[in-house]
């Protein structure tokens, strides 16, 4: 009898702890001698979500990834909510929710693919929580973007090719490439000085219009229209448009609409920049 009570007591003592351990599996590890940092499932999920959101992933993919990661760590009912400007995540319904504000967004498909890889590995059970956090942190701090000169070169090629694709002649290829490179470089530079994206795009489009007009006056190229259309393409918000569509289709109405508005504002900025030049022709 006594033995039975004891075992039952032991069972009761151990069971809640074991359950707690499963749900809120946290590991304390030593870093830098004295510092202790706690890694919880929430932290891993939110870090993964933050990297994806900052890199320009669709919000439904962000939520899906966070849910998958936490489910792989044994959480039964994770609740996640992401908008383009913030992430909210909790391990259970009516549990404590964790919030993260996202201010800067850029485009970095490589980071999205990397986080996707890690999430796959976690789901397959190849990574434990500490390794996952360390790898995510490494990705968060890595600079995976192509160097600026490569981007400007790519912008030049893209501009020239689009001028041909939209019905220009090969005479328009070089002026369009140079105008596109100018515009893109101008946008990159302006973005570093002033952190308002729309103004940077406006400025880039203005440069494109100006240089295209100058080329035409100097006798390069045949058609102003084709040159400008080609050169403007690197600034076009293609990612926002596709993201907005995919989010809307997935039922994320708030995110879809706000991304659509972002795309619209960008398009307006580009149009206004070019229009400023055309108005003087």
């Amino acid at each position, binding site marked *: 009898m006594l033995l039975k009570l004891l075992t039952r007591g032991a069972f009761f003592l151990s069971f809640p702890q074991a359950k707690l351990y499963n749900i809120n599996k946290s590991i304390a590890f030593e870093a830098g001698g004295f510092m202790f940092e706690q890694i919880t499932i929430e932290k891993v999920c939110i870090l993964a979500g933050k990297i994806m959101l900052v890199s320009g992933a669709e919000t439904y993919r962000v939520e899906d990834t966070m849910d998958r990661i936490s489910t792989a760590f044994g959480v039964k009912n994770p609740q996640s909510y992401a908008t383009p400007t913030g992430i909210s995540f909790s391990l259970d319904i009516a549990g404590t929710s964790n919030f993260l504000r996202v201010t800067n967004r850029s485009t970095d498909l490589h980071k999205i693919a990397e986080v996707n890889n890690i999430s796959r590995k976690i789901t397959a059970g190849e990574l434990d929580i500490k390794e996952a956090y360390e790898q995510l942190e490494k990705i968060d701090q890595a600079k995976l973007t*192509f160097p600026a000169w490569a981007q400007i070169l790519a912008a030049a090629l893209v501009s020239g090719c689009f001028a*041909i694709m939209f019905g220009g002649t090969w005479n328009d290829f070089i002026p369009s490439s140079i105008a596109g490179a100018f515009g893109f470089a101008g946008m990159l530079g302006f973005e570093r000085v002033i952190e308002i994206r729309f103004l940077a795009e406006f400025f880039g489009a203005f440069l494109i219009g100006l240089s295209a007009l100058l080329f035409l006056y100097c006798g390069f190229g045949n058609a102003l229209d084709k040159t*400008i259309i080609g050169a403007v393409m690197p600034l076009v918000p293609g990612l926002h*448009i596709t993201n907005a569509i995919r989010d809307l289709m997935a039922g994320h109405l708030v995110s879809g609409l706000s991304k659509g508005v972002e795309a619209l504002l960008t398009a307006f900025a580009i149009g206004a920049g070019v229009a400023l030049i055309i108005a003087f022709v």
Partner: protein
Amino acid sequence: MIIMQQLITSFIASAGFGILFNAPRNALVQCGLVGMFGWILYYVLVEAGMDAVPATTFAAMLVAVLSHTCAKIFKKPIIIFTVSGVIPLVPGGIAYNAMRNFVENDYYTGVQLSAQVMLLSGGIAIGLMFSGVINQLVNKSRMLFK
């Protein structure tokens, strides 16, 4: 000859967009190919006399299906391939013309062209949605036949 020229330029343009969006380096060629096939389908359809809106929709469908296959094969998020693939179909030229007409006080033509831009964007949206629908159908039928 013209088709060849369009193939090459659209491949370079889509792959170049992969660089601008910082796609993984080993996915750049696939991005270029997806964009190339989408644009060629659009180009051939328009040359054959089809209206631009249905042509864009069909091309976007092709892009969506190809992207989905690429995402499955190379185990990468689908967004990498759709974004670069859809770029050539974005009605940049018409949007520019609309803006130009607005600036030149020709609002009548401007509104007309803007409506066309909206229709073309809608076509892209429907085309992209198509791959999701196909995917769900395949998954559902797989579950049914199990």
